[in-house]
């Protein structure tokens, strides 16, 4: 009985309509939070006593990094659900999420190296966090490459779901092996993240950005989800009603 909402949500017409209805509820708060975070992070927060104003890159770097990991996890969980219950809706969600995650992984890498230049004096440092992020980017590329290699959408969905599950099991192993490797060769990371004594004027904009980016992902993935659901639908009457053909 508790499962009925689950099955109702998974039915394509319901999912399509719900996604459409929910999009503004994610989009507008996301826009407000990100604008507030930008003002707070760029203007109101004081410069850091060590890094000066360069630390402000954190306000876009850290939330991007958070999205890159969260989206991969979502892809894998959705893929597993799709495989186990043969649920097209879950596969559609995984397909919708992948390019968003990949693009934010790339943004993390670029902002990380822009932050690295003033801090390390070089754009690229084999820092464990950036190295892990680079490997995550390769995992995304592999996932999207595999998806694109199949003509049949159903098969692409299921094969890439297996890859996402394998990948998500490996992500922590890769990350810890990279951290371990790095500890052998150089000192700990010089990045700012996770510093416990951040004053509220710095912390609050960061939290706003985290929330804003997450909601932004929600809004974009819902729009993409509508497209992916339509692509997986063949000759259903609800499509006719919905699109007014």
């Amino acid at each position, binding site marked *: 009985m508790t499962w009925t909402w689950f099955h109702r949500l998974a039915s394509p017409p319901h999912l399509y309509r719900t996604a459409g209805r929910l999009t503004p509820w994610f989009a507008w708060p996301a826009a407000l939070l990100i604008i507030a975070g930008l003002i707070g992070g760029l203007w109101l927060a004081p410069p850091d006593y060590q890094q000066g104003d360069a630390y402000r890159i954190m306000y876009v770097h850290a939330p991007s990094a958070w999205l890159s990991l969260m989206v991969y996890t979502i892809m894998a969980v959705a893929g597993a659900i799709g495989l186990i219950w043969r649920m097209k809706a879950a596969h559609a969600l995984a397909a919708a999420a992948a390019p968003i995650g990949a693009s934010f992984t790339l943004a993390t890498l670029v902002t990380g190296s822009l932050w690295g230049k*003033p801090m390390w004096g070089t754009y690229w440092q084999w820092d464990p966090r950036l190295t892990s992020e680079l490997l995550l980017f390769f995992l995304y590329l592999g996932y999207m490459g595999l998806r694109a290699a199949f003509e049949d959408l159903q098969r692409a969905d299921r094969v890439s779901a297996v890859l996402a599950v394998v990948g998500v099991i490996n992500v922590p192993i890769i990350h810890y092996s990279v951290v371990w490797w790095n500890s052998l060769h150089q000192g700990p990371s010089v990045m700012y993240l996770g510093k416990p004594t951040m004053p509220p004027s710095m912390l609050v904009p960061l939290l706003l950005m985290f929330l804003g980016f997450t909601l932004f992902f929600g809004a*974009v993935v819902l729009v993409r989800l*509508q497209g992916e659901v339509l692509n997986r639908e063949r000759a259903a009457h609800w499509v006719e009603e919905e699109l007014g053909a």
Partner: protein
Amino acid sequence: MMRFLDMGGYYPWVWPAYAVTLGVMGLNIYWAMRLRERARRAALRRLQTQEEP
């Protein structure tokens, strides 16, 4: 204002980082809309071809 834009001398790295991130967000919005629009058109096309026979 100039002091704000200067970012304590770190402007060559701070502003590109924000530009890249906001650019990625913009592209994501654009790609998502394009995907949904194409899917809608493809679905309509499928409906029309299926009605013929």
